[in-house]
């Protein structure tokens, strides 16, 4: 479904992503792991269209989207959540989700009818909220939510665009064990309807959820394979996992 060929990006003298070639099959949960600074978020940004790509190609469902604008990628079914929470803090949970739903429900160049009259938008948003566990918090202002709830909304916003593939960038960042379990359960729930590229540090989650894992170090992709293969890979162990996890 998603194919990267030798994708690279440079920031001045720093090579952030270095000829990364990887592919994500339809329906799988594909994890992307690696130490901090490995270039994972940069790669996600390039796939999503928030960052430009210096060389290489990105294909989504066979279409070359390397230089396509971000909002067009969303329309094609590619959504992303952020490592550092980026929600609409002033708006309520319901309004946040409704915004994403609105984007794919007809033209928003409409100037007269009040949005509040569009029941369908808000009903769908409420359903998504229930899905991500925020059914009780519909009218809470996003900025006042607890960290775990904000991360859930973060993922929810991406899901609300009805994507075919979703890029989750460290959805469990900063979460305690209980919240992490809830997020893992959410990802398990959605994997049947959406392909997932999951960037994560939480190895527990990664090994539980992923069908395949890719490892990035210093901007390069050093290994791709099933969890078993990755665990056993000496290069990966040396660079990232260490001896304990393999045991």
């Amino acid at each position, binding site marked *: 479904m998603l194919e990267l060929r030798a994708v690279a990006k440079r920031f001045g003298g720093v090579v952030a992503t270095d000829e990364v070639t990887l592919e994500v099959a339809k329906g799988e949960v594909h994890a992307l792991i690696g130490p901090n600074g490995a270039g994972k978020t940069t790669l996600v940004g390039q796939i999503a269209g928030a960052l430009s790509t210096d060389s290489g190609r990105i294909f989504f469902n066979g279409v070359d989207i390397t230089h396509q604008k*971000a909002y067009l990628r969303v329309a094609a079914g590619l959504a992303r959540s952020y490592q550092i929470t980026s929600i609409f803090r002033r*708006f309520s949970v319901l309004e946040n989700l409704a915004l994403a739903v*609105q*984007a794919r429900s007809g033209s*928003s160049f409409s*100037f007269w009818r009040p*949005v509040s009259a569009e029941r369908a938008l808000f009903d769908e948003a409420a359903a998504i909220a229930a899905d991500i566990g925020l059914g009780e918090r519909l009218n809470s202002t996003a900025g006042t939510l607890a960290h775990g709830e904000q991360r859930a909304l973060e993922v929810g916003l991406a899901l*609300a*665009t009805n994507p075919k593939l979703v890029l989750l960038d460290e959805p469990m960042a900063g979460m305690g064990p209980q919240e992490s379990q809830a997020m893992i359960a959410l990802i398990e729930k959605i994997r049947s309807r959406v392909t997932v590229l999951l960037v994560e540090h939480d190895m527990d989650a990664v090994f539980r959820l992923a069908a395949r894992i890719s490892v990035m170090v210093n901007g390069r992709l050093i290994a791709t394979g099933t969890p078993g293969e990755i665990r056993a890979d000496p290069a990966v162990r040396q660079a990232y996992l260490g001896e304990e996890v393999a045991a």
Partner: protein
Amino acid sequence: MIRALAVFIALGIFPLVMQAVDGMFYVSLAARILIYAIAATSLNLVLGYGGMVSFGHAAFFGAGAFVVGIMAVEGVRSAWIAWPTAMAVAALGALVIGAMSLRTRGVYFIMITLAFAQMIYYIFVSLKAYGGDDGLSMPGRSTLAADTPIPGDLAWYYLVLAVLALVLYGMHRLTRSRFGRVIDAIRENEARAEAIGYPVYRYKLLCFVIAGAVAGLAGALIANQSSYVSPSLLHWIQSGTLMIMVILGGVGTLWGGVIGAAVLLGLEHLIADYRIDWLAELAPNYQDHAGLAVGVVLLAIVLVAPQGLAGLFKKHA
């Protein structure tokens, strides 16, 4: 809604009262304030709701005025033709300037809008045939029907009031519409808005153009106010003044432009026309220096009431 109605009823009765007490000068002043309220409200759309700090809004305001003035001098005086033309020209200007400026962010955006507005100023000022530095005198107000110009101060006031009501109602619907929500979201978190599928640039540009068109309408009105178009309408100090009105009145609120215009122009009028004796003891010429008071007041507001301003503007860039 009730509040709005009450305000408009009060505004509606006001001139009749004035007529009774021989205070028609105040009606004229009030009309002027209302026209600036329209201009400030249009800036509030782009600045308050859209989060775009445009320092060149006066360009559209003045352009609208000049279009009406030039057309009047050339013989086209019908309001039905001149005013929409003014709006169209202003909208076109906003489209061109916006298209170029909105590719930049933050400080660059502010300065570019400023620079382009100055450019428009220079263009109009160098049109010697239409007054140049001295401004353009019109042969009277625009006509509504068959060569009769809009009569008297009273009718003029009501016309302006009606336009203001229309503009405010339009804003009210616009901010609650789909378009308005998207603009609000863009102001809140532009990157995420793009990431959930909105072509942010297009929305900002359209918002900019709409605001420009309404400013053009205000310009058409101000030209008619005294049948004279001054190039100072295009100057960046005018842009600054409009911004002050928006800030004073309340950024991002429906009535912000109205309140701001009323307070600022009212204040200027008060200082200029009423001698406060004890102040005159200290500084005999104080009334010549009304600008000083405005500056001090503005500075005070900016320094002392930070949340209202800073809170609504996320980091640019």
